């Protein structure tokens, strides 16, 4: 349960060779200096705020995580059991680095932290997620986000 190379060979091979979308375009968006950027987290850890609807299997949509969420409110509902959860149990920043982004904003390394963050369920085929991701882009723009850090598990 450590790195990819520590998994059973068949599973490591399956993950390494997982079919990925073959995109025809190479989009590239530039922006201001990091110290002026507004940063949001988009996770694929199947994160859910306690009391809200957990991911069931390979749901294609996303869950909303307000910046006011406290560590005790956040759970992982990812379907896979083949990744470590003890790091997240000790410190949510291992998966959802909201406190660290807040500190970087205080220190002026980034401009600000978004009002809202989001999570998908990473075992879902990303092609199935596409309409939800494009809809999410509109929400991010409404929040003036111009930098997204994508965090897997």
């Amino acid at each position: 349960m450590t790195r990819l190379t520590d998994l059973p060979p068949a599973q490591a091979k399956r993950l390494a060779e997982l079919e990925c979308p073959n995109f025809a375009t190479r989009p590239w968006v530039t922006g201001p200096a990091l110290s002026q950027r507004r940063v949001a987290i988009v996770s694929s850890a199947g994160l859910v705020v306690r009391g809200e609807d957990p991911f069931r299997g390979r749901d294609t949509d996303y869950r909303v995580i307000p910046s006011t969420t406290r560590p005790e409110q956040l759970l992982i509902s990812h379907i896979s059991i083949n990744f470590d959860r003890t790091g997240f149990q000790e410190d949510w920043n291992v998966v959802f680095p909201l406190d660290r982004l807040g500190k970087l904003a205080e220190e002026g390394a980034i401009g600000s932290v978004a009002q809202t963050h989001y999570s998908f369920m990473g075992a879902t085929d990303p092609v199935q997620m596409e309409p939800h991701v494009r809809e999410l882009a509109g929400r991010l723009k409404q929040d003036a986000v111009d930098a997204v850090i994508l965090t897997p598990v």
Partner: protein
Amino acid sequence: MSALGHYLEEEGIATVAISLIRPQTENTKPPRALWVPFELGRPIGPPSDSAFQKRVILAALRLLERETGPVIIEDFPEDDPRATPDPAWRSPFIPAAAATGPADSLASRLEAESVLLGDAHQRWVAQHGRTTVGLSGLPIVECTRYVADWLRGKAPPSPREGFSAPLILRFAVDDVKAYCLEAAAAGAAKPSSRQLGDWFWNESAAGAAIRALREALQASDDDRLKLIVANFMVPAARVPVS
């Protein structure tokens, strides 16, 4: 993650992905990615090490200031110091659980162990101010009993409206794991995930019970239940090679 970056960037939002599986990222060719040499489940690195975590985040975010691309895939140079076992860590002192035995006995040992771990779990909550137990929505006593009753062959109905019994079973198993692993990590020592996993899967009654449940329910007529127990209870690295 890399594919999500592609879609967001097409919509006009700059992205940088943390990558845990470099070959997948190389195949997807996202605008920007930072590969990190950490175990799956720890994209930002070691828990409770804010300085290290900030270095990871800044290394990723600084890729947004590059003027040439796409595609950028860079490697983070530091290993996770918490991947190393802590020799000071001691597993919880509970009666050893045999890996095999009558299902009823194992179910009872699972429930007894849960009670015995109660104090350690309370110490964990006091130490960290939180628990990640809660997916099933059941208190841990009921949650453990639900898993134990499945092991006893009772096939209990779902106690939660809108959630099927197999789904609640999956969430209850996740909660039992979280409860035991949090209890086992209470205290000053900093065990690695492997230390905790070795204890849970090789020594605890809960680990033995979940393995036994996986074996027993794979004979079920319910295909959905079989799928869940076969794939989403025992990690692939902990399934004996047949």
